[in-house]
């Protein structure tokens, strides 16, 4: 295969800036780009909360009414949701998206206790009927949301599609969820920037990677400051309140972006009670605390002038 030049394809999907960087002939890069984009759009439509014909809407509209039989892909994603729920002792709950109704991070107003006590009874994956084929949300008003991990899953799938079409060097970046198809053609690694949690668009560290995936979760994605206290989008499904993560961000490296993203999110969700949890999981990681101090097992490369991959630009 001709190694070819580096081709970049930028697009917006799943509410994020995305890009494909592929080495290969122009023809190949264009073909693969089209296949990848079609795949992303398909997944976006399938699990969109905003489309009435999506799988998510079909399940949510049947809440309290009847079970819904789901396709194979959705079934395995729901099994994954179950695994996330088990491993997080209930903190990662795909039914907690409903708290969005009370939390408006653009309002700079905290939700009232009354609002939260109305919503928390509608949360609870343990009450959802799921037998591997049919899903049933027992109460009207309950909602399911795949948004917590479908983007990472998508990054893995797109990388596999690229590989299958013969791309051996390149990367997939879906809003900072990065899956490396392979190193640069000369074998040199990619430089992946970790966002500074307090300076949007600026990296706080850079890591070199030749393979695998990296994902970062942070308290900076959606947040508001009320009376000097930072309230992030990381919500406790039991109380409905914003939980105060011990770290401003957590980055994890794994073979698959889905795994990396799950661990970085779990690390923040668990951090108030188990700040050391990530250290025992066997995956390379980087933690940034609110004072912007770095810790973890990832080798980082100080500060630099040029923005690296993974930075919103």
């Amino acid at each position, binding site marked *: *295969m001709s190694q070819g030049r580096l081709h970049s394809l930028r697009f917006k999907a799943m509410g994020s800036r995305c890009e494909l960087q592929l080495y290969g002939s122009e023809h190949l890069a264009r073909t693969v780009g089209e296949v990848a984009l079609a795949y992303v759009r398909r997944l976006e439509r399938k699990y969109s909360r905003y489309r009435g014909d999506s799988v998510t809407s079909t399940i949510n509209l049947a809440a309290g009414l009847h079970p819904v039989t789901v396709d194979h892909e959705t079934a395995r994603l729901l099994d994954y949701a179950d695994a996330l729920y088990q491993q997080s002792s209930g903190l990662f709950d795909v039914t907690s998206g409903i708290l969005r109704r009370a939390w408006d991070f653009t309002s700079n107003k905290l939700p009232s206790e009354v609002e939260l006590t109305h919503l928390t009874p509608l949360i609870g994956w343990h009450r959802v009927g799921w037998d591997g084929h049919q899903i049933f949300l027992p109460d009207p008003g309950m909602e399911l949301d795949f948004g917590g991990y479908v983007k990472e899953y998508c990054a*893995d799938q797109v*990388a*596999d599609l690229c*590989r*299958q079409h*013969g791309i*051996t060097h390149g990367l997939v970046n879906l809003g900072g969820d990065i899956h490396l*198809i*392979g190193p640069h053609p000369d074998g040199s690694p990619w430089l992946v920037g970790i966002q500074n949690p307090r300076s949007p668009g600026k990296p706080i560290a850079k890591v070199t990677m030749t393979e695998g995936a990296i994902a970062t979760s942070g308290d900076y994605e959606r947040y508001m400051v009320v009376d000097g206290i930072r309230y992030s989008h990381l919500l406790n499904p039991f109380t409905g309140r914003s939980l105060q993560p011990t770290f401003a961000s957590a980055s994890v490296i794994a*073979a*698959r972006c889905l795994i990396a993203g799950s661990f970085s999110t779990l690390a923040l969700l668990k951090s108030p009670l188990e700040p050391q949890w990530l250290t025992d999981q066997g995956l390379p990681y980087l933690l940034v605390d609110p004072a912007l101090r770095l810790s973890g097992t990832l080798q980082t490369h100080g500060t630099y002038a040029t923005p690296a991959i993974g930075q919103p630009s």
Partner: protein
Amino acid sequence: MRIKTLTLLGVLLVSVSACTQVQPWERNYLARPEMALEPDPMGALLRSHIHHSKEAASSVSSGSGGGCGCN
């Protein structure tokens, strides 16, 4: 001949059971064109036709094809 065949099949079965699970993201080498069973079908067709016209052993694989071209 039968014993040979059985031995071959036996060896293959043993080697299959020694296979590891290869995840889709580990398939980038297997997906390369030079790792295909036949990377150049057109060239292989020509060579097998020539060898077939000089040797006794023909083979059945798949597809069709015929003609003599003998001399």
